[in-house]
């Protein structure tokens, strides 16, 4: 058995870029959700997240 797996840096770079794009898309989706969500609802959800971290 090989000690290390084969690492394709180009493939890894592509995957990172795809992850980054997906993350940015999520930020846009989340902002869209925020815009149509009452302050009480989003701030309560945000608080739960902040208190966990």
């Amino acid at each position, binding site marked *: 058995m090989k000690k290390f797996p084969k690492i394709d840096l180009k493939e890894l770079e592509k995957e990172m870029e795809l992850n980054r794009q997906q993350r940015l898309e999520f930020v*846009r989706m989340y902002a869209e959700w925020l815009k149509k969500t009452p*302050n*009480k609802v989003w701030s309560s959800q*945000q608080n739960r997240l902040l208190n966990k971290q």
Partner: protein
Amino acid sequence: MELEFSKNKIIFEKELSFLDRLVFEFTGILDKQKIDYVIVSGYIAILFGRSRNTEDIDLFIEEMPLKKFLGFWKELYAQGFECLNTSDPKEAFNDYLKEKLAVRFALKENFEPNFELKFPKTDLNWYSLKNKLIAEINKKKINISKMELQIPFKLYLGSDKDIEDAIHLWELFKDRLNMELFNGFIKRLKVEEKTKLLEGKT
């Protein structure tokens, strides 16, 4: 999200987080000591709902004489904060602030979150202090950087986190921006290319 806009002011109500309360406590001391300030950090995106936390809140404070700073220092300590850089207020003033370096304050025996304070150094720093926006949350007022500067500056900083903050603020405020001012900062910060990220054109 229900936001009320008036000239240089955004008014809204929200359930306050620990971070919001801490920011109000700290800026309340600045107000009490009559020290002008502006918050310029990622906290602005968090204030408006971004789903992340932060370890520091960056502020520019007006330049002041040592005597005024000593009064501010005394009040901070009385309210349970302490300086992370030094326990000597004269050193904090002369070796940090006067040298345009940041001093950090946190609640006693805590390291995070902390408030990173600087005197303005560049024209851009002065601009953000003198042209701030007031956010009124649950009837408490805090001074924050204008969105027309905050979004381009986040693009300029350019880390993944900064770009995400820029997109978040852009999505919320794009219909309310003074586009002449916004585009002016985009051009001066040379981040024209990065504006594609705001619209998802990458």
